[in-house]
């Protein structure tokens, strides 16, 4: 039984260069569902099997990348307690009032040592997954594109991996499921607030605050393969896969949205329990850890980020 204050990743706010091209990508190709637009022109999207209002917010900007990643906290009282705990840890927080983004309660915002902005919230309106909750059926109707069932995790790049790991472990209650080490240095930390092999990953890069990818969960290896056909049919920029990760054991494919933000479709992986030991990979085994099938690194995977 888990008793963690953060229940799961909630949503990501991404910047894109062209909103219409991006909506085509995320709705028609990836198969998310548009659930709203606000007065600032931001577009809200969710994966089909999510009940909450959104898992992705897009806004048009001069440079792509991530504005912030938000986690859902189990209760309002835990939200207040975590905000104080972050302050006590020496990181300043900012409250954002309920309703600033659609369907979302008050949020607390802070910046992790790797330079990434995170938000915590306890309430989001229910939108539903397209099926009743009594006698529901197994899949909503009229799904488009790849139609992942949910947002799964983000990988974020920057220096300060070990410091961000400590914040997430000591203050936010995450577990370290896997890590990549170079001698004494932590080069990557895979962290879970749930029973997934990761909910967020921090990977070393010289520059802080960079976005590596946002990952969406599909139900099977077969659906990863189907996703490969779909991105080819839509001439989407492809990077790696379908292939297998050593870390997390997940089946995967990477591609880019029209502004160069990296997306992943991911299936499989193992069930994480907090009493499992952390798995450690050494940098000499990094190729196998990242791409288990090929056992070699891609030219772009650790260099291309937004």
């Amino acid at each position, binding site marked *: 039984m888990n008793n963690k204050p953060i229940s799961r990743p909630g949503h990501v706010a991404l910047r894109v*260069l*062209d909103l219409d091209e991006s909506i085509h990508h995320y709705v028609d190709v990836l198969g998310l569902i548009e659930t709203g637009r606000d007065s600032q022109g931001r577009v809200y999207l969710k994966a089909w099997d999510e009940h909450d209002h959104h898992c992705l917010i897009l806004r048009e900007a*001069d*440079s*792509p*990348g991530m504005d912030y990643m938000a986690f859902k906290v189990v209760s309002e009282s835990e939200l207040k307690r975590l905000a104080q705990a972050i*302050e006590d840890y*020496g*990181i*300043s927080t900012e409250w954002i009032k309920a309703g600033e983004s659609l369907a979302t309660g008050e949020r607390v915002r*802070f*910046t992790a*040592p790797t*330079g990434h902005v995170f938000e915590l919230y306890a309430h989001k309106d229910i939108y539903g997954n397209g099926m009743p909750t009594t006698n529901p059926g197994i899949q909503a109707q009229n799904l488009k594109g790849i139609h992942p069932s949910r947002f799964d995790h983000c990988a974020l790049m920057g*220096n*300060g991996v070990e*410091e961000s790991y400590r914040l997430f472990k000591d203050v936010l209650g995450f577990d370290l499921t896997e890590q990549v080490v170079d001698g004494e240095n932590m080069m990557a930390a895979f962290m879970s607030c749930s029973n997934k092999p990761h909910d967020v990953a921090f990977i070393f890069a*010289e*520059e*802080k*605050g960079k976005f590596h990818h946002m990952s969406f969960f599909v139900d099977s290896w077969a659906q990863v393969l189907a996703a490969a056909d779909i991105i080819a049919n839509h001439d989407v*920029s492809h990077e790696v896969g379908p292939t297998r990760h050593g870390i997390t054991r997940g089946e995967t494919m990477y591609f*880019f*949205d*029209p*502004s*160069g*933000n*990296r997306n992943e479709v991911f299936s499989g992986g193992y069930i994480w329990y907090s009493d499992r030991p952390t798995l450690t990979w050494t940098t000499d085994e990094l190729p196998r850890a990242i791409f288990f099938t090929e056992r070699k690194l891609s*030219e*772009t995977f650790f*260099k*291309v*980020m*937004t």
Partner: protein
Amino acid sequence: MHLIRIMNSNEQFYCDVEKNLLQGMQSLARKGIPVGCRGGGCGICRIKVQKGLYDCKRMSRDHVSEIEQADGIALACRLYPKSDLDIEVLGLKTSKKICTHNEKEGN
């Protein structure tokens, strides 16, 4: 079709007017310009056009400033040739945003 000459590696390829420079290069299995996200976001395929006419779609301002763009700098994945081009490959700009350790807010 326009002839694209990469002046700092002596490579050249023909690029269809409908294709951006990176697509043109990759579709002929040519090399010379580094390939990244292909969406104007990552800055890996940064080049400078020395001679020729072209159009550009929107590119990340983190990688090509307005001044640089006016000076012929562009991302190859967003650049469509309108004539033969002579280009120089620049690659990823060394970022000014590299931060030092211990940049925690509130300290």
